[in-house]
């Protein structure tokens, strides 16, 4: 009963957040300076004022932003229709879905690696506290966490392509473009190495730091002392009592990150010309493609909200205090 109320409450908050995001989503891009029509026609100077006007009408930009455009957009969204992209002339939802898989592949791999490596590093550093290993791992993690994404990406790109012959961009080689991804796995893997490495290094630091401080806290608890007194080995104490309790903050941060990393991939995808959501957002922003931008931001917001709900849900299983309360 308590859990159901708790979850319902969280769910309600999530819904409210979503409504607020929808509103913000509409306003945000329209307060930006710039004329979407000029962005669509680019540098083509021969487009007459009449043609520009007809495009404006086609996109509904000839009507006032409020209430007409707002009502139109809300009406569309209510029907589950995200509209048609101005720059690509395809349904927004279709474009988003095709890019979502690519992004999930990249961040899924990156998250998995950074969680595993970060946890192990944090665990060891916490266990071997104040040793040179701890200091070294701490330094590395702080630096990795503080490094600008774009900078690290370009450094790895230059190094990787110069010394290891890794590709400079794309998701597959041009000759494999358009083929289903599972038929070109070696080529895909080759293209994934650098972006995944960048992602892993950037997030590893955060996980390591969380894990380290969390394990330090746990190790100072009385039950650890008890466990040692019972004669358990260091390793047993660490894995059976230390790790499990230290995982709690990790789950929170992992769940939250899963939501945020979709947008965090914008820089990595741009550096590596990786055909994913982040890249799409960047292009749509440059082209002032409102429907596409709105759709993409809605998706990003929803993924953050879902990740939050997921974290709350997991808590009810992991943390007895939440269960009881």
């Amino acid at each position: 009963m308590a859990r159901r109320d708790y979850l319902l409450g969280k769910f309600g908050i999530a819904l409210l957040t979503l409504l607020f995001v929808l509103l913000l989503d509409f306003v945000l891009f329209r307060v930006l300076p710039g004329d979407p029509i000029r962005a669509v026609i680019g540098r083509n100077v021969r487009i007459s004022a009449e043609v520009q006007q007809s495009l404006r009408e086609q996109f509904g930009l000839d009507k006032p932003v409020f209430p007409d455009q707002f009502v139109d957009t809300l009406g569309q969204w209510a029907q589950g229709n995200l509209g048609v992209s101005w720059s690509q002339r395809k349904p927004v939802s279709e474009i988003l879905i095709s890019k979502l898989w690519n992004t999930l592949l990249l961040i899924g791999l990156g998250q998995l690696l950074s969680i595993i490596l970060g946890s192990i590093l944090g665990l060891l550093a916490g266990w071997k506290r104040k040793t040179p290993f701890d200091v070294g791992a701490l330094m590395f993690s702080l630096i990795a966490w503080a490094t600008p994404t774009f900078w690290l990406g370009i450094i790895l790109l230059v190094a990787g392509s110069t010394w290891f012959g890794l590709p400079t961009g794309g998701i597959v080689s041009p000759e494999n473009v358009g083929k289903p991804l599972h038929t070109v796995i070696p080529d895909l893997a080759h293209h994934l190495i650098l972006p995944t490495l960048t992602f892993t290094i950037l997030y590893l630091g955060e996980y390591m730091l969380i894990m380290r401080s969390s394990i330090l806290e746990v190790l100072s608890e009385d039950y650890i002392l008890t466990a040692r007194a019972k004669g358990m080995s260091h390793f047993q104490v660490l894995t059976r009592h230390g790790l499990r309790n230290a995982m709690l903050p990790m789950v929170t941060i992992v769940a939250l990150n899963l939501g945020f990393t979709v947008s965090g991939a914008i820089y990595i995808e741009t550096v590596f010309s990786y055909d994913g959501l982040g890249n799409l957002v960047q292009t749509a922003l440059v082209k002032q493609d409102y429907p596409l931008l709105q759709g993409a931001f809605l998706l990003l917001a929803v993924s953050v909200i879902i990740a939050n709900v997921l974290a709350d849900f997991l808590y009810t299983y992991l943390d007895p205090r939440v269960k009881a309360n």
Partner: protein
Amino acid sequence: MKTRYNLFVVVTLLALILSACGGGAPATQIATDAPSAGGENAVLKIGWLGEPDTLNPAYAFLTEAYSIFDLVYSPLVTEDSSGEYVGALAKEWSTAEDGLTWTFTLKDGLKWHNGEALTADQVAWAINAIMLDPDGWAALSGYVGGFSEVTAPDEKTVQIVTEYPIANMEYRLSFLYAVYPPDFESFTTPEDLQNFTNDKPIGTGRFKMNTFDKDTGVIVLDANKDYMDGAPFIDQVIYQKFDSSDAMIQALKVGDIDLLYEVPASAFETVKGFEGVTALAFESRSFDELIINSVSDDNDPAPTGNPALKDPAVRLALETAINRQDIIDIVWQGLGSPADTIVPPTLGGGFWHNPNIKTPEFSIEKANQILEDAGYVLGADGVREKGDLRLEFRLQFDADSSNYPRIADLLADWYNQIGVKATPEAVNADTLIAATTGVGDYDLVIWGWGADPDPDFILSIMLTDQFVLGGWSDAGYHNPEYDQLYLDQQTAVNKEERQQIIYKMQEMVYNDRPYIVLYYNKYLQAYRSDRFTNFIESSLGLDTSASLGQVKPVP
């Protein structure tokens, strides 16, 4: 407890596996017999930062789209690297005495990419389609203005009759591609036509479309072995889209790509230093200028420009105090040429640029003297005044540009030395458009233009009737004599006669100074000269159809 942790891992893994397998298989299909890159095939890979908006010529606006059309489609005539118009589909052509009837004879044995023979009927159909549905063919309808009838009297002849003589007929025709009628016949409304993506265009050009993958921006083109002027020496051209210029430059360095469509000016020196790479700076068709408010006082709403700017002596002083070479060297690392008129020397291979216009030599002293002689006296605060007139101006520029702020600083500094106070101010492009088109709410503005290959467009920006909302004039130049000359040049079918009119127009604009044209930009490209050779080096770029038709792999 244990199982639940595992559940989390399983979910994550599942998502990963799904994403790897699902892979959002794109809709485009690649021909299975496509030659693979490498091996004995010569594949030229071109890197660029953009991609075509669409491959449908009815609705394509971006330069990138026209680069692809140039390779896949053929018009009747096309511009060559020297700025002359030469036959593409047409073997020869002639104009009747009255300048109203144009007759084109097609080359022999013309074939579409699918092997079918091309007929004159089909060429006429493609042009007629634009005339009949100008709303649908939004991107090209401007080129058929004044056409009254296009017919195919016999299998080898296309005839165009116009309402009035059209001076730049060849230029216009160079954009009227022969599209494959069966691809375009079925559309009934302009929207239907514009929503057609034409991802697999059938043309008659040097290269056939193999793949256009809208998701990744990759375009694969195969050599057309049956091309009318002979097969290309390379087998494939691949365009690859990059989202970061640093990554693209690195790709050229390590040889992932062979040609850079456009090198950013800031990276040109670096690229020049790469081993096995040749970097080239071509004269381009664009320029940047200082706009001087020239809006008529009768304009509605009235201009807010400082009235002192109407004085020709002030304008001359403003130009004399500009060191063009300094701007090029400091702001553009030397990549530009000092400019004079609004018609860049690249148009028509230099045919239209008036070579007799000489800009005053940079001299602060001389500029001071001009203002002194005109009666502007240096005030106590270092700003010159004459009666009510005070030489203090707003100096605005487009905030999006990274170069304009530095140019503004240079100008303000020089002007400061001649008793003119110019206050630099970054303004966003829309505000700038609102302040300049039809309004005249500014003093001085730094901005730029890209000209068409034909001078008609760039001359039109100085027309009186273009100073309206949505028009091209920002300076508000109004000169009935100039307007008349503009109409004259449009119908001057004789090239030399048209040249003389255009010379005169440039002189007028130069002397009245609605613009002080600062410099002509360079167009920067680079290629792997250790792999490919024999490009045509011209301001049209290395990747024109003609150039890619003769390029050869280095043995």
